[in-house]
């Protein structure tokens, strides 16, 4: 054990980045992880305790055996042999019980830990804000919850056994060996440092390779994932060969690093064998000499050999455990990165106390400025001021990238403003709890998403308690009912991943239905009908007029026909409001609006 701390310390002097993190994070991360063990603390304590029993039973066996040879056989004492043999047998059985117990508890502890950790991670990600999410790719978050947690589980399982067992075995073996013959024990004093240094050299070279390997594995995974998502693009441009070449490079890189890393660590075993065998030869030599001079016995020689191999094996196992630990360190860091992420949008204490709810649906922007990155140069939204009264329909029009989506995402507080204030029902959005705010402000995202499952399950996202009648009513309002009925299984139709088996417009209408299931005080539709034909869209508008009377509605759209009927049209350009008013007003006064109108005149002149 002392040797190992020595190894770790030495290693870190070399100043390998990998190593530094090991030392720096390990104690810290341990603290962070303790919480996930709490539920299983009994198992965590019992598992190593049982190992101690096992080791105690185990360690005396070679000594007993040597006694059989030296006392029993030499003195021709049958009874003694039988007695000692019986004791050995008994101890073996106790060891079995202890071992089974250890496995039982360490399984519970490690799997339980992993389960709690997964839950902790999942909960944390559920609390992430949009800007938190922007920093991680979804693939990488998924890998962390499953793959990386699995690696930690394995390490815990291994530690609860080996981390106690190996040093104990070593300690006991050293003590007994010295007891048998302190002179011969000098061999141990030489062998241990030699092996320790060899292992240290191998590990310190191998660890950085492993870290690199992990990164290259990530790259390989990314290429694969992207190819799955973009399969239609690859096929349509006939880029299969290109992608295969691209993959070939990353694949080769990974192979190279895997060979380097694994190729180094597999050396530990033969090196250890060599050290062990040479030690045994040394014991035979010195021990043989002693026996020749009559100071030592054959049985003792044999048990000494057994003990020294035990010591070295334990040392190797310990280093293997440390190796696994260090490998798991990469995973641990990825997990901690998620756990330590500070969620930047949370309920304020004031909000929690007041528990306000949105009832009217009045929205007011007061000199709002916004940028996505605090250190970013330019504001995406500049000095936005705007009042929308309850029940009004507001249309937002503007060129691509003029920050329409950004603007509406601020209302349900998906991002926080950089400066200024947004009021809903005359209260700052930051003074509502997120739940209360978002329950009443429903946003249909521009990049909408359906989930695998039945259509009904998807719609229920809008309101888990919704009855079938309510679901059908919402689907009817969103003009989704008819096409749903055209499917053989109707509302029970199973959608594929992100809704691959419905058309673009069908997807959008399902998303609208989901949003209006629980009549919101404020409904925001971000380009939600772009793939819906004009006829269907008009019907949606008509049913909204009937069934969403008091609701304040924000519509972002590019078709003038979609927004004609709005109470107010906001014209956005490059993050600034450049026009505000009804269709007729804007048509008279605003040149940009006139241009937009002209470009679509085909449709509007007839209206």
């Amino acid at each position: 054990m002392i040797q190992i701390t020595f190894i770790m310390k030495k290693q870190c002097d070399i100043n390998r980045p990998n190593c530094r993190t090991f030392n720096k994070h390990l104690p810290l991360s341990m603290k962070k992880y303790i919480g996930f063990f709490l539920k299983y603390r009994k198992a965590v304590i019992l598992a190593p305790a049982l190992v101690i029993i096992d080791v105690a039973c185990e360690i005396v066996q070679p000594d007993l055996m040597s006694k059989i040879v030296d006392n029993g056989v030499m003195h021709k004492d049958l009874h003694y042999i039988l007695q000692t043999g019986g004791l050995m047998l008994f101890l073996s059985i106790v060891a079995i019980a202890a071992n089974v117990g250890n496995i039982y508890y360490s399984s519970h502890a490690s799997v339980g830990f992993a389960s709690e950790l997964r839950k902790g991670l999942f909960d944390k990600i559920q609390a992430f804000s949009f800007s938190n999410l922007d920093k991680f790719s979804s693939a990488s978050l998924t890998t962390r919850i499953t793959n990386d947690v699995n690696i930690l589980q394995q390490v815990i399982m291994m530690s609860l056994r080996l981390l106690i067992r190996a040093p104990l075995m070593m300690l006991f073996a050293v003590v007994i060996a010295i007891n048998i013959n302190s002179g011969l024990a000098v061999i141990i004093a030489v062998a241990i440092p030699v092996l320790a240094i060899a292992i240290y050299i191998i590990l310190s070279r191998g660890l950085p390779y492993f870290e690199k390997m992990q990164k290259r594995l990530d790259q390989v995974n990314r290429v694969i994932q992207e190819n799955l998502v973009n399969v239609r693009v690859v096929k349509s441009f006939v880029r299969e060969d290109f992608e295969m070449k691209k993959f070939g490079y990353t694949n080769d890189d990974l192979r190279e690093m895997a060979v380097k890393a694994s190729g180094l660590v597999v050396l530990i075993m033969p090196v250890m064998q060599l050290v062990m065998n040479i030690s045994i030869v040394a014991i035979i030599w010195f021990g043989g000499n002693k026996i020749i001079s009559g100071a030592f016995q054959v049985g003792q020689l044999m048990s000494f050999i057994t003990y020294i191999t035990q010591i070295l094996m334990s040392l190797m196992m310990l280093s293997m455990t440390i190796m696994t630990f260090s490998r798991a360190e990469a995973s641990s860091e990825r997990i901690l990165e998620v756990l330590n992420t500070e969620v930047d949008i949370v309920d304020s204490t004031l909000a929690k106390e007041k528990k306000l709810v949105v009832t009217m649906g009045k929205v007011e922007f007061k000199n709002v400025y916004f940028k996505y990155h605090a250190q970013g140069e330019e504001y995406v939204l500049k000095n936005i001021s705007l009042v929308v009264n309850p029940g009004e329909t507001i249309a937002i029009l503007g060129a691509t990238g003029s920050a329409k989506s950004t603007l509406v995402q601020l209302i349900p507080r998906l991002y926080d403003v950089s400066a200024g204030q947004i009021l809903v029902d005359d209260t700052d959005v930051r003074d509502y709890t997120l739940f209360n705010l978002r329950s009443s402000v429903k946003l249909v995202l521009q990049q909408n998403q359906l989930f695998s499952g039945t259509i009904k399950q998807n719609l229920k996202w809008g309101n888990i308690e919704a009855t079938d009648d309510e679901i059908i009513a919402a689907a009817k309002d969103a003009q989704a009912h008819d096409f749903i009925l055209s499917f053989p299984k109707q509302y029970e139709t199973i959608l594929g991943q992100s809704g691959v088996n419905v058309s673009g417009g069908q997807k959008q209408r399902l998303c609208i239905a989901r949003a209006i299931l629980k009549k919101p005080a404020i409904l925001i539709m971000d380009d939600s009908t772009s793939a819906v034909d004009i006829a269907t869209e008009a019907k949606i508008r008509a049913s909204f007029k009937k069934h969403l009377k008091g609701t304040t509605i924000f519509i972002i759209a590019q078709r003038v026909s979609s927004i004609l009927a709005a109470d107010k049209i906001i014209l956005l350009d490059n993050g600034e409001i450049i026009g505000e008013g009804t269709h007729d007003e804007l048509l008279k006064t605003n040149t940009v609006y006139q241009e937009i109108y002209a470009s679509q005149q085909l449709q509007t002149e007839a209206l």
Partner: protein
Amino acid sequence: MNEPIKSGEKLNLAGLPGRRGNIVIERPKNSRQAILRLWNYLKRQKWLLILALFLLLVNIASTLAGSYLLRPVVNHYILPHNLPGLIRMVFVLIGIYIIGAAAGILVNRLMVVVGQNTVRTIRAELFGKIQALPLRFFDANSHGELMSRFTNDMDNVSDCLNTSVLQLFTSGITLAGIFVLMLLISPVLTLVTLIIVPLMLWVVSAIIKRSKDFFTTQQIALGKVNGYVEEMITGQKVVKVFCYEDSSRKAFDEINDDLREKATSAQLYSGVMQPLVQNLNTINFALTATVGGFLAILRGFDLGGLAAFLLYSRQFGRPVNELSSEYNSLQAALAGAERIFQILDEIPEPADIKEAQILGRIEGNVQLKNVTFSYDQGKVILKNITLEAKPGQKIALVGSTGAGKTTIMNLLPRFYDIDSGQITIDGTDIKNIQRNSLRRSMAIVLQDTHLFTATVMENIRYGRLEATDEEVITAATLAGADSFIRRLPKGYQTKLENDGGNLSQGQRQLLNITRATVARPSILILDEATSSIDTRTEQIIQQGMDQLMKGRTSFVIAHRLSTVRNADEILVLEQGEIIERGNHEELLKQKGRYYQLYNGQFD
């Protein structure tokens, strides 16, 4: 002496966290076939393998020889007090051990190389297969599920090839060797061992059989967790908007608890095997010591022999033990391999027929004749579609959502094959054209936008790999994307990540259009390519496109009629059938569906 102590713990020699043993194991349904196929990959490195086998034999022989020599050393040199002989033997032993260690080092490295080469080959083949599979396959399989074959299953195979194969050989050969040596020393004592070994084997096989079921259920549970997490996180923004966090937490807890239960059982059963085998071996040791002691007294069995035998019997447990644990890891690898082979065995897009032509420069005459198509049997999506695009024409498809517009465009590049009817390009049935050459002749802007993790420049160049920077910029200007790209932090060199996550939807569409533009295709297909783009920008794009597509055929799908009004022919699609056709003026005169759409008069 190869670790004559009990070395019960399973060592994972490559230092890879033991993901193999316990977590991701699916019992192979047909192990033999999987082994054979894996072997076929390994066989490609025949010479390395033969060399490895040779080195392995040297290594094992040296270990065994070392312990075998212990008996003569004790009997002939130590007990008779023969010092010169002892010195000689010590040097012989050292020599043997050094040779053994050298062989050991070489064989271990060699096997890592062989293993990783094999893994690379399989991975590349799997990736190649993914490229060759038809779209139907991707419609039916979730990404998370496929990715797990690349990661989890491949990991199992990789770990196994790295160490387990070698270990299996080592253990097997060592076991046989030790057994022979034990027989040589004392047949009677060997008999004692023989009583224990079957018991061990019985324990092992009993546990393996039981743990199989647990592993299978664990796998199912793990799959559920994986699938759920993947999908929820991909849709996390929707979760936030709908305050769905609590519901999703609850659902997650349920499947996570389920996984915990299943995993604990699996862990327990697979974990308990090694200590059990190891302890049974201790019992064996105790019995042998006792019986050996009796034999020495009653039958005059020599002491050196007893010493050596006891060492062997301790050694004996190690390979047995290792075999049992490697067996577990082998099973995991085979299960993984099977899942990989499943994909490799999937039916790829049908091969081009032998006489398939390569399209050269084409005129761009596209015809559909009585085309009928359905995604799933029983639900016909397209009925009897007939249309013709003459070279250089712009054909527009309009009609209500779900009418089948995207579907028609999916048929031209043969993403899906039609049920009946015929599609021709310049008079040639597309079935008689090499698929790649067919797809190269067209560029498609899909309704869903997709970008790669790469710079803007690289993303655009995806359309034509040889395009120069100037050509890329020209295309971007034509497609109206240049101005926003220049405003990005690093312009064309800005790296896009997460599918272009920090661009606006319209900006993503602009990049998709630019990518198609730079391809300079003979046939251009725009499926709602400008739906999220404002009409003024769209006009710029249209001018660019008209310039670009002069003399080339294009198809445009749009709900915004202003996008399609200048098309040569407009087809109105309803429920999979073409109900009206003609140019803008003609259709208005018909006073049919198009007229209604145009006038905003809806029933």
